[in-house]
């Protein structure tokens, strides 16, 4: 029973006639956001890309941390190596010291630097990968 009676056979685009609809409208489900998807990750990555201030700050922190790790590794190697020429120049008696049958300069310059370089590289790789994993974990939370 409808309050509005439009008479037989009349169709209007105005106030709808509920008395006699031609077919029942099919139910449609409208999805504005898929609640099963990881919305937070999408949003944070989008924030990173759109360079919101939050995104920029995250990235800047990561860059600073990576640079610090690289600088620490590099400086520890370079300062050690750069000290050698000065050391042997100002203290020439050190060039006569013998360790295990090999003179100290040849050990210090021909053998020791290589494990040192590898150790610095290994440490940095470990640290950088950990920092990146932490960043991704934070972004994907």
């Amino acid at each position, binding site marked *: 029973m409808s309050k509005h009676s439009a008479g037989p056979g009349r169709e209007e685009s105005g106030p709808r006639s509920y008395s006699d609809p031609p077919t029942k409208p099919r139910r449609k489900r409208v999805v504005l956001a898929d609640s099963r998807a990881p919305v937070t990750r999408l949003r944070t*990555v989008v924030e*990173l*890309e759109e*360079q919101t201030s939050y995104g*920029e700050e995250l*990235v800047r922190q*990561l*860059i600073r941390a*990576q*640079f610090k790790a*690289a600088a620490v*590794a*590099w400086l520890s*190697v*370079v300062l050690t*190596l*750069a000290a*050698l*020429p*000065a050391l*042997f*120049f100002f203290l*020439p008696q050190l*060039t006569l010291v013998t360790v295990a049958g090999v*003179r100290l*300069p*040849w050990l210090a*310059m*021909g*053998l020791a*630097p*290589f*494990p040192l*370089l*590898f150790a*610095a*590289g*290994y440490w*940095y*790789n470990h640290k*950088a*990968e950990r920092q*990146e*994993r932490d*960043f*991704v974990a934070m*972004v994907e939370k």
Partner: protein
Amino acid sequence: MSAQIWALAGVLAVTVATFVVGWRASRLANTTQDFLVARRTVRSRRNAAAVSGEYLSAASFLGVAGLVLKDGADALWYPIGFTAGYLALMLFVAAPLRRSGAYTLPDFCEARLGSRALRGLAAVLVVAIGILYVVPQLQGAGLALRNILPWVPTWVGSAFVAIVVIINVFGGGMRAITVVQAFQYWLKLFAIAAPTLVLCVLFVGKGGVRDSDTTALSEPLPPTFTTASTINVETPVVLQAKETVKFYARGTIDGEDADGSAYWTAGSEHTVDAGTTMHFSQGSSVPVVTGAPADNASWFAPAATSEDVFTTYSLMLALFLGTMGLPHVLVRFYTNPDGRTARRTTLHVLVLLSLFYLFPIMLGVLSRLYVPELLVDGKTDKAVLALPLKVVPGLGGEILGAITTAGAFAAFLSTSSGLLVSVSGVLSTDVLRGRVRDFRFATAVAGGVPLALAIAVRQSDISLTVGMSFALAASTFSPILLLGVWWRKLTWVGAAAGIVVGGGLTLTALVISTISGLTGGWAPGWVSQPAIITVPSAFLAVFLVSKMTPAKVPSDVAQVRLRMHAPDGLGLTRDRAVASFGTAEERSRLADGRHRK
């Protein structure tokens, strides 16, 4: 005679193997990407071997031992520097550069700073550095072939290597080269390690230094000839005699004709002209070319004068920062799938390099005892080739000599190939139009010019020339890479200023030191290794000019920084080679639906 046959057989075996391995891989190389970047299908450990194989040039294989023979402890900075340069690359540049998606240095300049003009300037520098690095390789090839076949002129060896390399690169570009380079690292390692171990065992077995009547390494006496030796002086040289020495000479000494016995007093210096033959008897002391330590004690000890220390620091700076600017090093990065593997590959490379460098150092020390005659004409780069036969006369020495010669040729072939690929790549994409045909044309040009220069220009120590190209790379590209990756405010004007200042100063120093070498050697040591002046100047220029042009900071700098530093799993990297050269299908597969560069 049979030594020559063994050595030739070794060289031919290496050449043929290179061709075969390269040809099989090149049948799969069809697209521009294959030619430029081996389509990123290279696994990490093989890539590390390929990187090391390409990096270990004649400077590492021959030059290190030669310089250790001549300069002693100071030459140890070369292997340290070559390796530490890789560490710098790994710490500061590896992952961000890979993530930026750039496939060459000029491409990185454009990606980061947004300027085509800078890209062109960078391309010019890449070609200059590449040429400066290839010329000593080709000259070393000429020297090595001459060592086997003394009647062959030096240009034959250079032309041989140049032609083999051009053909190989012609055929397959980067893809062929990767497999070849990996194979060549192991070949070179074997070629240097096996003879060294054998020689060391024999040396110790003979009783070491105590047995022979050579000068001990730490005595303040000059080295002595272990056998009667005849030396043909081919380029004019100035020699210093630390002890009195009597010998027979035929030619021109000190401007006067010499024919018969000659007598040099202790502490004297003499000029010997080209075409002179000098014959020394066993046990006489060796006159050493001026500029090198004349007695074993000063050879054994590190730098003792302030000028030498200064030059050492300059060398360290050039080598530590120069690696990242070498064209054939950077191009290999792109073959890694992501930033993380780029870092890991570099770590593997550090191990492979460290393992290698132990051996030329030991060979250099042995050379001081067994082949001191090379000190007379100063051509010590032959040390690794000449040593085996002196320690082990007979068949064993011939075979070992053939192995080291084969390894040396592997070094020439691999580094020249890598450089040729990268220089041709830059020429074809930045000067020509980037098709496969353009790449092949660029290959012919980029191979022919260094060959012409190698023949025309007088040969100097391989490692010194290589050190100069490191200085050039350190003065031009390392400021741009380091500041481009880590500093927000870099502008293309600043980068261009850095290239002009750093490159200009280094090339000026190169010209001065060449002139000085031809006119008597008046320039101080640091002119031939100018990094300690040029590198800080370049950094300063880049920094100041960038600060002065803040308006030229690229508009997308935040996005580019994000791309370079964000971890790999987040899908933020771009692929510039695909964007420029990929097929439509590859491009759509990698696109994310957003219309952004």
